[in-house]
């Protein structure tokens, strides 16, 4: 049994005397999973590099397609999300639920900005750069690698949202059905904000890129803009609940396991950024 919840007194968040390894099972599982993911990403990066070093005739020149400014911005955003995730873990290890929630929300927002940047980047590559998944080996390996990383980020954001909602579980367990309904509504509001909000934001960027003004934007996207605001208001209402919750220092291992996954997503990007993007500007053929 590795649950710290069953232990009394101060919690040692780095060791667990109740397990045979002295490491909480959830943490050990996550490290084993991340070790396997290293091999997965190692193979994907190697595949991209092998084909990139031997490009067939007529391969596109990535320097004509990439936007180093956008990618650098995404790298910075992901780095800062890692900081917020570390602070969320730090806060929950002290039982500070409010700070944990704020840091989780910040991490979610930064993760979504990264994903939005990737959607914008892919859209630009396909429609302006003419780079698709199927029209060149470079496109195939590039989208497979960065798309797999983006999928990891998306799973991480989903996990963060679920953990954020979990932090509102009431301490009074007599009304469990009500909590499930409320949690589901909370989740749906989050999904709505993300999907409709991202559509609205991308439409705004598109309107400016096409040279249309705010008037044109609001005349075409007023409904989605209004829905986004309404769902944000619902999320604020959920966040203002002040009833005692069944979430605290004993759940630190759950937040930490999620944090390990999120930091891993960051370190994979730490490798992808120079290898896939920066090297293009100096040496690759």
């Amino acid at each position: 049994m590795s649950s710290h919840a069953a232990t009394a007194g101060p919690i040692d968040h780095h060791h667990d005397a109740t397990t045979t390894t002295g490491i909480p099972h959830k943490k050990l599982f996550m490290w084993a999973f991340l070790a396997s993911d290293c091999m997965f990403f190692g193979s994907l990066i190697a595949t991209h590099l092998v084909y990139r070093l031997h490009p067939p005739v007529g391969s596109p020149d990535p320097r004509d397609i990439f936007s180093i400014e956008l990618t650098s911005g995404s790298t910075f955003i992901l780095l800062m999300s890692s900081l917020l995730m570390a602070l969320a873990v730090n806060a929950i290890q002290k039982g500070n639920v409010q700070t944990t929630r704020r840091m989780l929300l910040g991490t979610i927002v930064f993760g979504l900005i990264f994903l939005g940047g990737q959607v914008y980047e892919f859209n630009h590559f396909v429609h302006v750069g003419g780079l698709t998944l199927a029209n060149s080996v470079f496109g195939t390996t590039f989208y497979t690698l960065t798309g797999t990383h983006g999928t990891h980020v998306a799973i991480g954001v989903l996990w963060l949202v679920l953990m954020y909602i979990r932090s509102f579980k009431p301490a009074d367990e007599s009304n469990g059905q009500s909590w499930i309904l409320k949690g589901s509504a909370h989740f749906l509001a989050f999904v709505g904000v993300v999907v409709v909000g991202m559509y609205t934001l991308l439409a705004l960027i598109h309107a400016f890129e096409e040279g249309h003004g705010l008037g044109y934007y609001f005349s075409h996207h007023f409904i989605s803009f209004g829905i986004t605001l309404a769902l944000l208001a619902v999320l604020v209402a959920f966040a203002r609940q002040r009833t005692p919750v069944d979430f605290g220092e004993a759940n630190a291992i759950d937040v930490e396991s999620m944090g390990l996954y999120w930091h891993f997503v960051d370190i994979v990007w730490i490798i992808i950024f120079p290898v896939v993007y920066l090297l293009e500007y100096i040496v690759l053929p």
Partner: protein
Amino acid sequence: MSASATAEHPADAHANDGKFHIFVELAMILAVITGAELLVIYVPFPNSLVITILMALSAIKFMAVIFIFMHLKWDKPFCTILFFIGLILGGGTLGALLLIHGAKDSQPVGPAYEEQV
């Protein structure tokens, strides 16, 4: 523990928290290193030197994140060993594939590669 229990923690709890400052300082350092990575590709150094610098900076960022943000520094060594098994296997696979496909006999041939062969 409930949210109400957080009242036991003073508002400035973070001020006395060493890890908080370590995390923030590390994030700033990582941001500076990322900026240095960007700058170095525009400096007219030999390619081999630029690649070495980029790989070294990435390795520093990688290690800093896993040992500090991911708490390996404070966790039992077994977590480090477990992760490095995967890391070495993954990195070894990457290195081996690059070496194999970098060998002359492994160069791709055929109409699509005629200009390079």
